[in-house]
Structure formats: structure tokens, C-alpha cells
């Protein structure tokens, strides 16, 4: 249990990281696929996901990812600043 420090560090380059197991990498691939525009989960990724997860599990994961997209994007209209942290800096993992 728990996200390791190595995983935190390697999140932006998870594909090449040895600190994520195949299951975790699949979940991260799904997160990336659903977050980019246009969102698209190709057949290969879906098949790989189905090998590891049941349909119920996939529904949960997809819902979590989609919901996080809602939460993360909602604030952009109102330019909500980080709350309680330093001004103007937001989770800055450089992935773009």
C-alpha cells in the first residue's frame, strides 16, 4: 500500500521507470489516454486492460479518471489559486 517516493519521482516518465508494475503502468496509460484531447483508448490498450482488470474494475478506474478530469478542469475557468499553498504555482509536474 502507498505510493512510493520513487513512483512520485518517476510519474512523468512512468513508461521507462522500473518502479511501476505492469498493472500500474496500464492504469497510468489509461489516465493519459483519457486526459489528452481527443481522448481515445485504442483497442490494444483496452485489450491489455481487460487482461488485468474486470469490467467492474475498469468502470471504477475510468470513473476515477474522468472525475479527476472534471475536478481539475473546473477550476480553470475561475482561475482558482492553490489553496493554502503558494500563490500561482500549481502541481507543476512538467508533462506538456
Amino acid at each position, binding site marked *: 500500500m502507498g505510493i512510493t517516493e520513487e513512483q512520485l519521482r518517476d510519474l512523468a516518465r512512468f513508461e521507462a521507470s522500473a518502479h511501476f508494475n505492469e498493472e500500474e503502468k496500464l492504469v497510468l496509460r489509461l489516465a493519459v489516454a483519457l486526459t489528452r484531447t481527443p481522448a481515445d483508448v485504442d483497442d490494444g490498450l483496452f485489450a491489455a486492460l481487460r487482461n488485468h482488470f474486470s469490467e467492474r474494475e475498469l468502470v471504477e478506474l475510468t470513473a*476515477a479518471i474522468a472525475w479527476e478530469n472534471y475536478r481539475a478542469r473546473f477550476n480553470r475557468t475561475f482561475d482558482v489559486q492553490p489553496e493554502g499553498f503558494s500563490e500561482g504555482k500549481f502541481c507543476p*509536474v512538467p*508533462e506538456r
Partner: protein
Amino acid sequence: MGENLRTGPGGGQRLFNLETGDTARAPPMVPWYSGTAYFSRNRTFQYTVAAGVFRATSVRAWHHYVRCRQGVAGQPSADDFEKGRNGMKRTAGVQNREAGLRARVIFWLAKRRLGRIPLSARIQARDPKLLAAAARMSMHIARPGAVSLKLKELAQVKVAALVGCPF
């Protein structure tokens, strides 16, 4: 103001560069990372890093940790704290006095759980039914289900990082 904020060594410095993988200046496990983090003046959230394993009760805590590790969170000044406390630039959302019963209940729950009412909740309270639905969805997602919470959190943090969400 901000006097109860916990301080830690290296506050405000760049501690870790994720792009270059420069960990040379990342400090060892200091209280900053292994103790209590500030969240509001009256409430803190807990996270610990022990034996290289991060444990926290919320994605928000995880974000704080990442931000500190990347050296961009740093230690907030009193001004930062006050601005951040409102988190406000374009709207202050619904204030307590103008909130209806539904929004008040959710504000109360949020304050109990998070120590304060997030601005995003105040904004969504312009549509109280939306706020209620969003709160319910958030709580549902945060529960363990068929997949582990770790997997869900991993995916959520990745999304937040890609979108650039202001935690």
C-alpha cells in the same frame, strides 16, 4: 498570521527538479516530509514518508508533498497563506451567509473533513444541486471498491498533473 504553519528546512528553495531528475539538493527525510503539513491555520493533514513509502489520507496531501519535493511549494508566506486561504482571483463563490441549507450542509462536511471549505466548493454552490452531486461523486470515488485506492489515486494524480490543477 500563519504562525501555526509548520516550517521545515529548505522551505522555498528548489529542492528537486523533476525534469532533470536532479535530486542532489533534495533533502533527506526531514520533518517537512515526514510529519504534518499545513493546510489551514486550524487544521493540518497528515502524511508520512517512511522507508521510502508515502502514506497519506488524501490526494491533496500527495500534491503537497510533490510540490514540496519539486521545490515550488516552498514555505508559504503569511500573504500567500491569506491569499491561498481565499484561493480567490475571479470569484469568491457562495459565502456562508448566502448559502442555502443544502450548500451549508456540504460546507460543514467539507470543513469537517478538510479543515476548510475549498473555493471550488463555494463556486459550485452557485448550483447547490451540482455541489451536492459533485460532493457525493467525490466521496464515492474516494472509497475503496473493486480496485485499490492506490491505483485510483495514482491515476488521479497523473490526471491532475497533466491538466495542471491547482491544489
